[in-house]
């Protein structure tokens, strides 16, 4: 039975956000007998309620509270109030996500020592290594049912994958397969196997794709140690005179302010909301915001170097049938500066339905050059580029000087400029992908600009030294012992791989640390 805790219960761990980081941490702690309250800004929709319709689903699940943007990225011009495409709902962005689950490469935990100092980039080594992460990666893969691990077969390739694979073969790429996906290729964990519905981004109505909504959260609730409180938007974290955090002020479903007392607070609102909350919790003792003695809260915002390439063929493809992210090419993920940039990138198939294709293929474009592309929608194949982008101090989340949300909390501004390394990498990837599709007979290709960010990282970075970052190797704030960060904002650097497997692995690792510290009474 799901627990229900009193507002004045100061023995609970309060987690803000129920997505990849928060949902996992909540269940892991509950399994260890720790009492947990998850405050989740969004509503609770179960997977039967999901909608196979792009705009309909967006309206149901996406975070649409206003944000502002600045910087030279095209998103700031095309989607000035939608810098990120992420979720406000129980389960967080694991409802929308595609499921690609990749481990980082060894050197990606050591970017400063591997790439060297790069002008305009705030590179730093992680305080953890791949070797330390491996056991947690293994646990996360087992939990999430990642294909191609633990003897689970990979998913069958759909049409979009087959085009990708044919091009990869022609170009001589060696590592191309249907990916490591947190999608059931066989029935397991009391959930269906993938029915190739093709609406992975709209929430999987079969429950085949891993989401904290119908895995971690009900499992945690079944222990009697977890309460998930939906429609509860955290606004401020309170602390006492000694600087320890004591509770979280949130707006409840009626907009009324409440305070949930806490022994420990873990922030997992994704990389825009987490720093926004820490900054908004500024006090006399912490005038620059909580955990911000380094000045790094909100800085080093990363979103991966992304872009898409769609291609039209003289014969039909029907790329939208089947898993949205149906396959991967990993050959370019290596670090090889001879290509003109540091770090690497992955190619992953991607498909959008007609409504989103119209909105995202070339935002703002009109006229025949644009519409003749859509005329051949069923003859299109497509892929997404995801590569390591450079952390920059100027790329950051700040509190808007005068605009406030419905609860009176300053809205977030997201500033982003591409680093020259990002641009060089994107251009390389556009060229390779164009060659790949040309090799299979594409008659026209479209180097498509990045969408609003789906991967948001780095704004509360992990560091060895307190002066360099916000949290230590356990995600524990350098400044405040009982305050943790449990989402992708901990990332020191972004790596080429999709982030969620690493977020989940870090949350499993963090749960062990928190439980041990609680038993030892150090926090």
């Amino acid at each position: 039975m799901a627990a229900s805790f009193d507002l004045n219960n100061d023995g609970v761990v309060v987690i803000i956000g129920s997505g990849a980081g928060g949902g996992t941490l909540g269940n892991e702690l509950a399994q260890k007998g720790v009492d947990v309250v998850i405050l989740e800004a969004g509503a609770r929709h179960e997977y039967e309620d999901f909608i196979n319709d792009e705009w309909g689903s967006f309206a149901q699940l996406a975070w649409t509270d206003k944000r502002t943007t600045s910087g030279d990225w095209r998103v700031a011009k095309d989607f000035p109030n939608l810098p990120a495409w992420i979720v406000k709902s129980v389960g967080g962005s694991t409802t929308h996500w595609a499921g690609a689950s990749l481990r980082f490469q060894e050197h990606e935990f050591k970017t400063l020592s591997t790439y060297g100092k790069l002008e305009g980039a705030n590179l730093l080594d992680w305080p953890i290594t791949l070797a330390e992460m491996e056991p947690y990666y293994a646990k996360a893969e087992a939990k999430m049912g990642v294909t191609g691990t633990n003897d689970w077969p990979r998913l069958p390739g759909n049409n979009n994958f087959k085009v990708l694979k044919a091009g990869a073969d022609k170009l001589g790429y060696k590592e191309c397969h249907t990916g490591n996906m947190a999608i059931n290729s066989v029935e397991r964990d009391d959930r269906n196997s993938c029915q190739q519905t093709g609406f992975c981004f709209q929430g999987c109505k079969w429950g085949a794709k891993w989401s904290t909504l119908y895995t971690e959260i009900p499992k945690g609730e079944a222990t009697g140690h977890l309460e998930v409180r939906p429609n509860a938007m955290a606004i401020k974290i309170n602390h006492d005179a000694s600087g320890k955090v004591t509770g979280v002020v949130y707006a409840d479903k009626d907009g009324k302010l409440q305070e949930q007392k806490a022994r420990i607070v873990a922030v997992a609102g994704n990389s825009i909301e987490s720093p926004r909350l820490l900054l908004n919790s500024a006090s006399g003792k912490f005038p620059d915001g909580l955990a911000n003695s380094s000045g790094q809260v909100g800085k080093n915002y990363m979103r991966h170097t992304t872009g898409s390439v769609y291609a039209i063929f003289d014969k039909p493809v029907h790329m939208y049938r089947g898993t949205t992210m149906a396959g991967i090419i990993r050959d370019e993920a290596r670090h090889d500066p001879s290509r003109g940039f540091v770090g690497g990138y992955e190619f992953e198939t991607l498909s959008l339905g007609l409504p989103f294709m119209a909105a995202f293929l070339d935002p703002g474009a009109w006229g025949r050059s644009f519409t003749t592309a859509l005329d051949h929608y069923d003859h299109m194949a497509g892929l997404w580029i995801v590569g390591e982008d450079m952390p920059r101090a100027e790329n950051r989340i700040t509190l808007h000087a005068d605009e406030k949300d419905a609860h009176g909390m300053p809205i977030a501004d997201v500033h982003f400029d591409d680093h020259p390394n990002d641009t060089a990498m994107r251009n390389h990837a556009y060229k390779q992908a164009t060659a790949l599709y040309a090799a299979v007979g594409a008659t026209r290709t479209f180097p498509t600009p990045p969408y609003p960010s789906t991967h948001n990282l780095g704004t509360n970075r992990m560091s060895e030294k307190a002066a360099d970052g916000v949290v230590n190797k356990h995600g524990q704030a350098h400044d405040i012992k009982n305050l943790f960060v449990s989402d992708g904002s901990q990332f020191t650097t972004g790596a080429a791989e999709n982030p969620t497997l690493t977020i989940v692995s870090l949350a499993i690792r963090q749960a062990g640390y928190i439980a041990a510290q609680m038993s030892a009474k150090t926090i």
Partner: protein
Amino acid sequence: MVTIYDAKPGLSRRELLKRGGIGALLVISGSAVISPEHAWGLETSALKPETMATLIQMARDIYPHDQVPDKYYAIAVKGHDEQAGKDAAYKAMIEDGIADLDKKSGDGGYRGLGWEDQRVGVLKQIEATPFFQAIRGGLVVSLYNQKEVWPIFGYEGESYSKGGYIARGFNDIEWL
């Protein structure tokens, strides 16, 4: 191209629809834009019907798909009429925007320009205006989000109720 004929006063919509044979593509009658050939009509309540007819043409010129009938462009822009009914400033923006478009197009107005290229030339002059942006920005959703147009593009939409594509061609590509 959307051809608009102004009906003689007094013709009822039913008569117009009956006279489908006259070859007119769109007819303006009273407060309505009517397509006798395809038996549909759009009643306007806030905007002038001529404005609506021009909006329909403009929508087609912004996102031209020769295989998509006018009806869907009409449905895609009718929200502006509703919005204009609620918001006087909005109504003024649309009416003024269309008036400006007509003025820039010369004697016969925007709809009088015979070639798409000519009309696109005029649209290019106003591309940066809030009026154009409002029309284009709304249209990219309201046109392509109509389930009825999806089959024209070969997009099949919702698939859960049909059991996904696992047995319906997710991997049926043959030409590779």
